[in-house]
């Protein structure tokens, strides 16, 4: 990372303040106002719209292998997703992904 310490602190402060303002929005600054239906509909999908796009390149082009697709990491990703979706349990997904990764790393 090529960021300087002041830049890193500025990022932390701005993201912290921005996040706080989002959390405070309708409890404080916009109190008494209703959130429009269309906005509510969009907001419902933010985690599911942003996180998969963030993960996809990390799975397909992992930095640890210099960006070459790696079967062990693919298998781990699929195992996490499958077990996570099936059990609806975060910890089960993490454990399944970790187990799949360590079992398949020595193979490939």
């Amino acid at each position: 990372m090529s960021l300087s310490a002041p830049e890193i602190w500025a990022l932390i402060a701005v993201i912290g303040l921005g996040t706080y303002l989002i959390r405070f929005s309708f409890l404080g600054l916009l109190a008494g106002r209703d959130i429009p239906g269309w906005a509510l509909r969009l907001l419902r999908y933010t985690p599911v719209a942003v996180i998969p796009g963030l993960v996809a390149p990390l799975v397909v082009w992992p930095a640890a292998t210099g960006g070459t697709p790696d079967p062990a990491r693919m298998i781990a990703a699929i195992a996490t997703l499958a077990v996570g979706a099936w059990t609806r349990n975060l910890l089960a997904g993490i454990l399944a992904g970790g187990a799949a990764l360590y079992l398949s790393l020595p193979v490939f």
Partner: protein
Amino acid sequence: MASSRPKTVYLRGVRDGLPFVLVVVPFALVFGVVAVEAGLTLSQTMGFSVLVIAGAAQIAALQLMVENAPLLVIVATALAVNLRMAMYSASLAPHLGAAPIWKRAVVAYLNVDQTYAMSMIRYEAEPGMTISEKLAYFFGLATPVVPLWYAASLVGAVAGARFPDWLALDFAVPITFLALVAPMLKSLAHVAAALTSVVLALTLAGLPFNTGLLVAGFCAMLVGAGVEVMMERRA
């Protein structure tokens, strides 16, 4: 719970918050480890966990920092991940809006996925709760969740630098994120949004200034909402 006083309600919140420790601790540990690996100092890592308290946004920011994305893109992406909390704020408002402003300010700081989800379940199940009981319950939920978020970040950060390469900890981030997203894929609209996000993020990876993810995320939100509307019309 006609006879319950705020203190009992607070303790009930603590008890209901305890199971979330299993979710919060691994996520915070991963953040601590990857933050130090990425080159953040211990105090910067803790600064993130105390000032932002939002794992997904923290890890997203970190990933973009490692990729040397422009500061503005890092902030925009992290805040995009946290936009859902505006919805949390709006749904808590009818229950807690009558509280004094400073209490609402504290609630806002502690308004994370787990405290929000559990408090809404309880408020809706027990409409007779008074405002002070609702507040006490919310603070009870936050009592195990938030301090353990800090503590596990610290443990991860302190232990982080000592992990050897063969542990492939680089992959802790994708695994944690996938485990977080998998249980959210509960409707066709959610699946459609997730797929759009993946396909666009990969095809737009070459966009300048790492803006591909923002574009992908925005389009995926529209697709999710669009599919939801379509399914409602059909039903």
